[in-house]
């Protein structure tokens, strides 16, 4: 692996951009170039490449902590952890050339998320350059730390709009001793059946519904996995589907490629028990029904409306027409507060302007007259 500390150069670039008010588009592997409101990206922005800032800074398996530069490829990090029998439990999705910084900035997690926790759950500390060009360190390399606000976890899923992530420390866990998948015949959209399973002390690490099949993954000690498998029954995974979890995690599964003319891929995030959403298209239910993938030709407005009515939100997971909001619009008090949070890190809106929620790129004045 290439070990390269590019932080001094990155810091200088940001300081220069800050002094000239030049927007910056933060890019690493560019594996998710289609995510967010990419068409709205500031045209005159410079690219800030994170690729030369890579390598593992420290890793002590018995401490269950790894510290890594954010330009490190996820595959590389996974390989090093696997050599010590460990893993990132939130199963970072690996798109071609994905870096750990990109996964965290986009707040992505694989099928284990409802059982093992999310990306932010495993973040312990970060080193970040804010919009003033300051080199800041939050949190640390220890699991329990309540000194200062939890700005590290706040960075996860912020699409880089709260600063340039330089380094990150994460909690890791041992890989499970045993793993096994059970397949059951299912009624499409039968997510309530997951809810019942989730309330039992089963070693579940994956639960998804693809067409008329339900897949349950069990992970843990040999004894626990085989006991649970006996209790749940069902078929074992057919050979041609042996990598189905990885395929869904990394969007390599047939479902993600099947978009026909006009259909676009959406991620709908709702409560696992939310009833089926009344939207046209094909569905794949992951995260025990809490992360629903939709291939649909419905309009962004319709999808956002339906997701909100179900108590969740929707994100477009592919390129889309200019002007269409890829993310669930924020409004009211929430929009104003989030905009002020953005303000506190990046008052000039240098980072990834337009990419995240464009409504947060309007500068809020804290004393601004309250709406309504």
């Amino acid at each position, binding site marked *: 692996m290439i070990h390269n500390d590019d932080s001094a150069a990155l810091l200088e670039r940001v300081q220069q951009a800050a002094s000239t008010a030049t927007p910056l588009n933060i890019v690493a592997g560019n594996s998710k170039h289609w995510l967010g409101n990419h068409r709205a990206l500031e045209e005159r922005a410079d690219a800030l490449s994170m690729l030369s800032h890579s390598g593992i800074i420290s890793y*002590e398996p018995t*401490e269950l902590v790894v510290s890594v530069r954010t330009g490190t490829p996820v595959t590389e990090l996974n390989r090093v952890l696997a050599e010590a029998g460990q893993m990132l439990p939130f199963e970072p999705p690996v798109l071609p050339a994905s870096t750990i910084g990109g996964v965290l900035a986009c707040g992505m997690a694989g099928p284990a998320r409802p059982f093992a926790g999310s990306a932010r759950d495993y973040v312990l500390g970060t080193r970040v350059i804010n919009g003033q060009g300051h080199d800041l360190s939050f949190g640390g390399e220890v699991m329990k730390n309540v000194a200062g606000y*939890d700005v590290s976890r706040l960075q996860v899923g912020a699409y880089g709009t709260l600063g340039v992530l330089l380094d990150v420390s994460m909690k890791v866990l041992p890989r499970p001793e045993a793993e096994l998948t059970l397949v059951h015949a299912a009624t499409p959209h039968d997510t309530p059946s997951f*809810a*019942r399973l989730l309330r039992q*002390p089963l070693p579940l690490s994956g639960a998804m519904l693809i067409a008329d099949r339900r897949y349950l993954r069990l992970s843990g000690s040999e004894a626990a996995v085989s006991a649970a498998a006996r209790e749940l029954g069902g078929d074992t995974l057919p050979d041609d589907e042996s990598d189905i979890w990885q395929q869904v995690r990394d969007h390599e599964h047939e479902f993600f490629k099947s978009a026909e003319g006009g259909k676009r891929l959406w991620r709908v995030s709702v409560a696992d028990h939310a009833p089926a959403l009344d939207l046209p298209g094909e569905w794949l239910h992951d995260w025990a029904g809490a992360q629903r993938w939709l291939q649909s030709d419905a309009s962004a407005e319709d999808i956002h409306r339906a997701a909100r009515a179900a108590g969740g*939100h929707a994100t477009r997971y592919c390129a889309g027409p200019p002007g269409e909001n890829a993310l669930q619009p924020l409004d009211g*008090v929430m929009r104003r507060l989030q905009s002020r949070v953005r303000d506190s890190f990046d008052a000039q809106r240098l980072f990834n302007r337009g990419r995240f929620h464009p409504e947060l790129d309007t500068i809020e004045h804290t004393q601004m007259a309250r709406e309504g």
Partner: protein
Amino acid sequence: MSAEPADQPAVSHSPGSIPQPVAEDSSQNEARIAQRLERRRRFAGELAQWLPAESILSSEEQLRPYESDGLTAFKATPLLVVLPDTIEQVQAVMRWASANAVPVVARGAGTGLSGGALPHEDGILLGLARFNRILELNLELGHARVQPGVRNLAISDAARPHGLYYAPDPSSQIACTIGGNIAENSGGVHCLKYGLTVHNVLSVTVVTIDGDLLTLGGEAQDSAGYDLLALMTGSEGMLAVVVEVCVKLLPVPPEARLVMAAFDSVEAAGDAVGRVIAAGIIPAGLELMDKPAIIAAEAFAKCGYPTDAAALLLCELDGTAEEVVSQIERVSEVFRASSVSSLHIADSEAERLLLWKGRKSAFPAVGRLAPDYYCIDGTIPRRQLSHVLQRMDELSEEYGLPIANVFHAGDGNLHPLIMFDAGKPGELHRTEQLGSQILQLCVEVGGTVTGEHGVGVEKINEMCVQFDSDTLTQFHSVKAAFDPQGLLNPGKAVPTLQRCAEFGAMHIHHGELPFPDLERF
């Protein structure tokens, strides 16, 4: 331990560390008192528009119980205590405070150990004790919607008959409230496996200083925009006031067993912890005690600890019956390979609870060995344990004050208990200095000044050692995004740069002198 019950304060004596007003002549003083009484009367009158008379406390006798939290070393009397019982009342109080620029300090059960709920002399104390109802126990979905004044243990007590529980279990769980747990991001002895408060809360509803009501998080696994739920957790009442909480309930593990392992040296015990984790086992709890703590706990709880051991590990394993059996076997093997001097597996539930009782009563147990004790809360990378303990021995000798150590070994959270006698002149001051030295040692080895008790007012100076001025400035900007006037819990959690300059022992970043732009005194 996240916080001990209110009757076990972190410092069992009052050192009076709060800056006292400079001596004034008596006429000035009288004028000040008169002014204060006038403001109290006026504020009470204004708040009576929204709150019934019995929800506004203003007499000295009524205010006294609120003058400190679990850190009784610090005391202050608020202008008023208000005890709203509806969200609308909280909103009205906040709008009023915002419009009149009056500081607001929120308080749950007051069990915190860092002075986070210490009142502001010119502000109001917002007591949330009346928000004490469990609103919904949803067994099917595995969550509980509760008011912030509900006690941590009350949630598990309500859920347990249905096979569910709320995982974070700070030692003060019998008394501390869930709202306070959010403020401190409380842990507990089981957080290595089950996580902290931040990992177990689905959503919080908060009232901002402007009186707006907002829900952060929800039933979905993530929300649109920034993860303000993560930011809110552990923010020590600085950003908003929590008025409702939805927590995740987990299925009660069918089986829990405890292994007790004694070692001839703390190093050997620390090494064994590393080996357990290297073997791929994550125990539900993993606690280490040193000799002074073992002796104190045994004398207090008579739970059967080997008092000749230099270090003791309590290792709890839970899960399905099959899982626990196989894990006990593997853990025992690891301990045997780590030169354990004695190994014992609790053979009944009663014995398991008794062995835990010893550990959980370590604070009061140490409290019996000396007139006073002071509990420190730092976190260190576990590999630094023997270095830190050795350095602490040296400091203990230097200051002439004995220290007992209990350690959440799995996650590196160390609780040194300094024994002292506040009756001896100067001893209290020396104790505070020793505590500060220990926290600075934690930062030096790559750890933090607070693992779970929070910064509050107690560790505000040590924050200057852990963070540089740019980072502290960023914290202040985050605070301003929520509370531009700085009315929520002023003076807590994040020190001003001015204060750091006064403290003197400062963060050296990249070899530069910190705060070069500040004038020195």
